């Protein structure tokens, strides 16, 4: 199953490489990873998505917790949560295609953020599934470039991950 693990990490040099190293060292996979400092500049918030059976996910969270730089973590997929990913996608857009692409972008609540004589650059946010669906709707032949941030997420309701 897919899990979203959110980690509060000391904002120290080398901390990220320890997290990434752990995954390669122990043969766990990372599907996506995003990291940036929080409102407290000594802390970073890292969100990663990974797949594995229960036993693997349990080992992953235990090993992450064991890293000295990890302050706290939560598996967001264990409860209600909000997840978002941002994608920028550059597609061929000429002639009649231009209107069609614009319509599709509206349906997905995306925005055309840059326009060229024969291309559109579109920004879309949402769950990874939604982004996948948009990519599909554009069709392989038209896609020039795709860049995605990876998943960020928070637990729903009162629950917070903080010191």
């Amino acid at each position, binding site marked *: 199953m897919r899990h979203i693990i959110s980690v509060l990490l000391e904002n120290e*040099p*080398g901390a990220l490489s*320890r997290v990434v*190293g752990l995954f390669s060292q122990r043969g766990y996979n990372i599907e996506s990873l995003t990291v940036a400092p929080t409102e407290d500049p000594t802390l970073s918030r890292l969100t990663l998505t990974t797949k594995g059976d229960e*036993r693997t996910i349990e*080992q992953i969270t235990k090993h992450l917790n*064991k890293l*000295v730089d*990890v302050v706290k973590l939560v598996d967001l997929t264990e409860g209600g949560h909000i997840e978002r990913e941002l994608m920028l996608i550059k597609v061929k857009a000429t002639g009649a295609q231009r209107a069609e692409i614009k319509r599709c972008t509206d349906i997905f609540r995306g925005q055309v953020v840059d326009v060229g004589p024969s291309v559109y650059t579109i920004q879309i946010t949402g769950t990874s599934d939604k982004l996948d669906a948009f990519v599909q709707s554009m069709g392989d032949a038209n896609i020039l470039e795709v860049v995605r941030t990876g998943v960020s997420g928070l637990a729903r309701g009162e629950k917070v991950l903080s*010191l």
Partner: protein
Amino acid sequence: MELLSGGDMVVRALEEEGVEFIFGYPGGAVLHIYDAIFNNCKIPHVLVRHEQAATHAADAYARATGKPGLVLVTSGPGATNAITGIATAYMDSIPMVVLSGQVQSHLIGEDAFQETDMIGVSRPIVKHSFLVKHAKDIPETIKKAFYIATTGRPGPVVVDLPKDITHPDEKFEYEYPKTIKMRSYNPAVRGHSGQIKKAVSMLLAAKRPVLYAGGGVILGDSSELLTEFAHALNIPVTNTLMGLGGFPGEDRQFIGMLGMHGTYEANTAMHHSDLIFAVGARFDDRTTNMTSKYCPTAKIIHIDIDPTSISKTITADVPIVGPIETVLKDMLELVKTALKKTPETFDQEANDSWWQQINEWRDAQGLWTAPRYDTDSGMIKPQQVIEALYKTTKGDAYVTSDVGQHQMFAAQYYRFNKPRRWINSGGLGTMGFGLPAAMGVKLAFPDADVACVTGEGSIQMNIQELSTCTHYRLPIKIININNESLGMVKQWQDMQYGGRHSQSVAYKDSLPDFVKLAEAYGHVGIRVTKFEDLEDKMNEAFSLKDRLVFLDVVVDPNEHVYPMQIASSGSMRDMWLNKTERT
């Protein structure tokens, strides 16, 4: 406040940590630190002949004393030479701090002379590491390094020190922190009381329990408590390779080491057990054999300080995360109360018949009840060498070991009654560990008998340390079980590769004359070839109190270590017991 240079801060911090020896080797990046050592340092520096030896010596010092070892090496090749020793300490959870020099801060990343990304290279084999950016961070970083290395599940910590921050002319305020608190590092201090209650009632109800105790018992200084616990329930005890000495080897309740070369009775008892009580052990693949066939009727209680060790390979029914000492204390209390208030909860009959069964196994196939080796070849048997060592030292020596058949024979035949006496590289299996390890132990305990059980293959991996032994007058006894082959490799080739001895006997005709070699370093060399001489020569070696003696014992090259679990395809109880069953 006092002003000190970075180099002086390093020295002072080590003094405040109570470091007894600096095991090290100088070089460009640590010259400022070495100058500080020269000018003003109360701690003796031990100059090894290879940085790997510094790490093994510091590691063994830690294993024997329980205090953290300290290593100081230069950048680049000094740091990379230390890697094998750091990995060895990591696999066996040994508290150790390694200070490595680094090129000057402004050169980092430029492929400067002797630059290696030590933090990167060591990352998967350290508990934690620090790259110090500024001299004023030195005291707190070193404090943290020792704190992390010695608490929770211990392990090696690397502190990388760029040369410029140790410069003698740049001085900063120095104050050594008394205590340290880290928001991101809080090892468990107590076990879960509900789990502890559950574990105790399961142990009282068990009909065929086995206590499976590992190196964590020794690291957690809980041997006496464990022994008391085992006696209270009259439960059979088996040790892992790392746990030997954690329970007295001569105790009636000790059924020997378990695992690949464990005793018949230990492996068989595990297989038939209905409750395995694992204490500070990690169900390593060398002890479980095939996990899908592992102990089919057993429930498992597992105490460990490290949650990642629990249910990693074998699922625990009752996991307890916490320090062994406090958990066992809580458990013992409950056991004693139960035995007093409701003695009928303990099934005496079941206990009697379990022991009767174990004793039958032990009498039939035990290592000590009947000779497990034949003496037909007329040559000295490696097992006999360990038996002689055991006799001469009355079972009371510190025994370090290298890796191979000799290591397994030592683990099987030397019965360790005390913790911290058996010092070997269990997790990584590092050939070359034994001699530098013996140096670290001998420095810590100059009056104790320290023996290094080794093979002619392993000893050559750090043979240069004979010079360090001359230098510091370390009268250790090297017991070289010379089978003129990479015996353990040869054994596997005999058993699984149709006797094709690829490279395992290749050096047979180019071995050095170890007696002359020892003499060249100023030591005593003695060769033994006949069994009749073995005991006398062994006694002679140990009677030369102030000399290092290299006892080169020529043994039967065709001996194999038995029992041997049928690797990877079998269950715990599937073992070859002698050559007629398997080569």
